[in-house]
């Protein structure tokens, strides 16, 4: 069964002025198709306002499509009775770590989710230990979240989700407010959860370098999926990406520029190593 199966989903909302009249109808998603298999690592790219976050909220049943159907692990998110289970299936991590942490001790924060699932006390503690180890923060279990760095806080937030053992985790720009070190920590955590635990990851990001680890990339523009493919396929089309206000990693851009200047370099270079190897090969 598909982890995520969205067919032609649209979502629009009304803007209402002070007198309560509808001023305009904003279409945030317009006919989005998305099929994700269990265990895939998906990156979603798109400019501000392209509908990425609206899509993320759909996956967690925070909102339901106004048109089309969305099945999460076989459950239709538009059906009220499925909402609870959909939310247990897909956990969500937001941009600002400070808005997601509620307890004053790390391990209590991580335990909040499993506690709300009504688990046994012992099971909760097992889950807390296990998820803090998964994000490599076990040594900080007694720390106050406020004293942690941004990257560490974001990993606490991820641990809180992991403790509920969702099959899928949706991360909505989890690295936007972090420094380069914090960003690396969070991305490493996502990849480990995906590779070791087999959790399906949907990573929404503005950083092209973070998307190169994904199995597939979805590029969104004006509420639609404009491109979908492996990182290699996607980053072979820098001009189309630019038209969507996106970018490519610097190594990719350099490879592309060199190719335009007549140096035989293959399309869709993703890393420094690939580019260096390609240049060595031909010369």
């Amino acid at each position: 069964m598909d982890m995520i199966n969205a067919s032609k989903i649209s979502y629009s909302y009304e803007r209402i002025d002070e007198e309560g009249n509808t001023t305009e109808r904003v279409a945030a998603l317009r006919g989005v198709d998305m099929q994700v298999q269990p265990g895939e690592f998906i990156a979603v790219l798109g400019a501000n306002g392209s509908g990425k976050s609206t899509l993320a909220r759909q996956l967690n049943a925070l909102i339901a499509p106004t048109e089309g159907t969305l099945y999460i692990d076989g459950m239709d998110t538009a059906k009220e009775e499925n909402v609870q289970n959909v939310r247990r299936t897909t956990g969500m991590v937001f941009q600002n770590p400070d808005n997601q942490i509620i307890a004053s001790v790390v391990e209590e924060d991580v335990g909040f989710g499993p506690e709300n699932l009504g688990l046994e006390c012992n099971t909760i503690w097992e889950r807390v230990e296990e998820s803090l180890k998964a994000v490599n923060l076990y040594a900080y279990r007694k720390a106050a979240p406020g004293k942690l760095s941004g990257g560490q806080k974001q990993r606490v937030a991820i641990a809180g989700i992991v403790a509920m053992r969702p099959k899928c985790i949706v991360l909505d720009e989890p690295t936007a407010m972090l420094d380069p070190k914090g960003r690396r920590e969070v991305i490493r955590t996502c990849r480990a959860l995906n590779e070791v635990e087999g959790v399906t990851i949907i990573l929404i990001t503005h950083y092209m370098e973070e998307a190169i680890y994904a199995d597939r990339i979805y590029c969104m523009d004006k509420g639609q999926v404009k491109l979908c493919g492996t990182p290699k396929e996607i980053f072979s089309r820098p001009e189309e990406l630019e038209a969507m206000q996106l970018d490519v990693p610097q190594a990719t851009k350099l490879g592309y520029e060199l190719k335009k200047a007549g140096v035989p370099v293959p399309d869709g270079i993703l890393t420094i190593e690939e580019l260096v190897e390609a240049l060595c090969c031909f010369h």
Partner: protein
Amino acid sequence: MLLSLKNVDYYYGKDTVYEVQALKQVSADFAENEFVGLIGHTGSGKSTFLQLLNGLEKPYSGEVLFHGKNIWDRDFNRKQLRAGVGLVFQYPEHQLFEADVISDVCFGPRNFGLSEEEARNRALWALDLVGLEKRFHQSSPFELSGGQKRRAAIAGVIASKPEVLVMDEPTAGLDPKGKKEILDMLSALRRQEKCTIILVSHSMEEVAEYVDRIMVFDAGSIVFDDQKEKVFSHIEELERIQLAAPQVCYILRALKQKGFAVDTGAITLEAAKETILEAVKNRSHA
């Protein structure tokens, strides 16, 4: 010198058990019309440094000089300093508060003593500079997109025509196009107004592309303060303090090791492309 710090020490929680020395004997000079990048990992003292520049924090010891005058002298007009040194915080859009964009941008100049009309003209000028079209001027700041809000907030500081514009991570959280717009706008502002810009950034590629000089912070000290090319030639030292050089530096370095005659001093995409093309051409002839 336009703005300088001399042997500044700064502590948080001085004489308590939480005492932390945030800056240690820091000295720096900023001349007119410079574009300086500040890099350093979280907690290295960058933000404290910024707040000392316009007198939001007072040094424990040492001096901060604006046009050669100590800003903490009794007769120094610090209000004038704050008009002269504009500080744009991280996520400045969180500070928007007025009912419409133009009033928000007018707030600064009006508080620095300009008449209503002058303040309005300044606001229009600043909004034009940041590229917020007329149709947004009467909108509530909260109806704008993230990138537009950011630009409205920056306009609010630019409207006071500061001689030094200090920006704390102005591109954080924006999409690639939004980032480029902000940085291009800063370059244009520097060209037109001849002001000095101090930019804090976590993106080495961004700094390599736009600024002239880079200051590197680590554990409360400035470890490098030099031309950007020179700073990025210290890749190992930068990595030791959890920073990095732009990706192209690593590419050029690896190519050099493989025997390509590239100039490893190139730090921008354009320069890297030139030197690689040159090296490839020479190699094919050989």
